[in-house]
């Protein structure tokens, strides 16, 4: 079964193009452009891995991360950020974040992170 990936980013063009590229690599991908839609999707059709933009209008990335983890703690979240990791870590990071990836995204690096996150989710689900 293919890994279910949910992309959450208010940059519609970025999210939809990334979704198309991951779909070509046989991932089961859905892209949403509002934080509220990410929460609804996590409840109705839980993904294995969420690629989550840090800065979005209204509810920010960290708030979405906390809510998703409350819905299902086994869903793994990878943060998409334009900031270097050192700057992001300066903020108050909620627990449960699997990893970060910098924008512009390196596809090879992203694939490795998604697969590792999915592996962790599978282990958590079966333990």
């Amino acid at each position, binding site marked *: 079964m293919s890994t279910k990936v949910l992309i959450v980013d208010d*940059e519609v*063009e*970025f999210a939809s*193009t*990334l979704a*198309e*590229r991951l779909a*070509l*690599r046989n991932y089961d991908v859905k892209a949403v452009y509002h934080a509220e839609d990410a929460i609804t999707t996590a409840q109705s059709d839980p993904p294995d891995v969420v690629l989550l933009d840090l*800065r*979005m*209008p*209204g509810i920010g990335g960290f708030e979405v991360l906390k809510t998703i983890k409350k819905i299902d703690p086994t869903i793994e979240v990878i943060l998409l950020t*334009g*900031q270097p990791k050192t700057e992001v870590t300066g903020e108050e990071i909620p627990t449960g974040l699997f990893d970060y990836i910098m*924008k*512009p*995204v390196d*596809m090879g690096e992203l694939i490795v992170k998604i697969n590792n996150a999915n592996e962790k989710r599978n282990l958590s689900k079966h333990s």
Partner: protein
Amino acid sequence: MEYDELITSQLSFIGKVLSVFSHEINNHLAILKESVGLIGDLIELGKTSSRKDLKEILKITQSIKNQIEQTTYFCDKLNGFGHGMEEPLSAFNIHKSIEELMVLLRRSINQKMICLEKDFTANMPLIYSNPLKIQFLIFCLVEKHLKRLDKNSRIIIKTVYSNDSIGITIIPKGNLIETDEEVICNDEIYKHIIKQLGGSISQKTADETTIMLPVSLFSSSNRS
């Protein structure tokens, strides 16, 4: 007022503009990288000989062109902002100057789900003044409202021209929220800057603030 306080506020303003700018450019680059990557994927992983894929590639190249145009427009605004700092006084179009600020701060304002709108009067003459200080002043007033307004609110920047003076009014529209967030500049800073610009600042209602500026700032005593 403390000289350091003023410099710190102005540097914070420039820093904010630069960080929003670099974030925006980075987003455009991320989209460009994905678009180019998708073309590569279609060639490598798809069936590029099909008419459907060729149409898809044409669609992506159009999207790349749009992204480049948007990035160029954005860079142009930063370029104008940078040129505004070169000379203490210059003749410029106040609307162009306000628009620069609006474009450069758009992302941070959108993130608060607040809409920044303009209501510019027609036939505005050129102003001889300091564009950076005017932008800084408008930024301070907009920022003050940004901290206090609830989401889905609006901030309108309105301009008028009368008696050789230009009026810039900042009008917030929406619900207020309680906040203890710090603002970059305080009332002392407004007064100091407006004095340097040879103008005045007034508050007509509880929220509406108007800056009046002379069209021409000649007096050397007003120069910073």
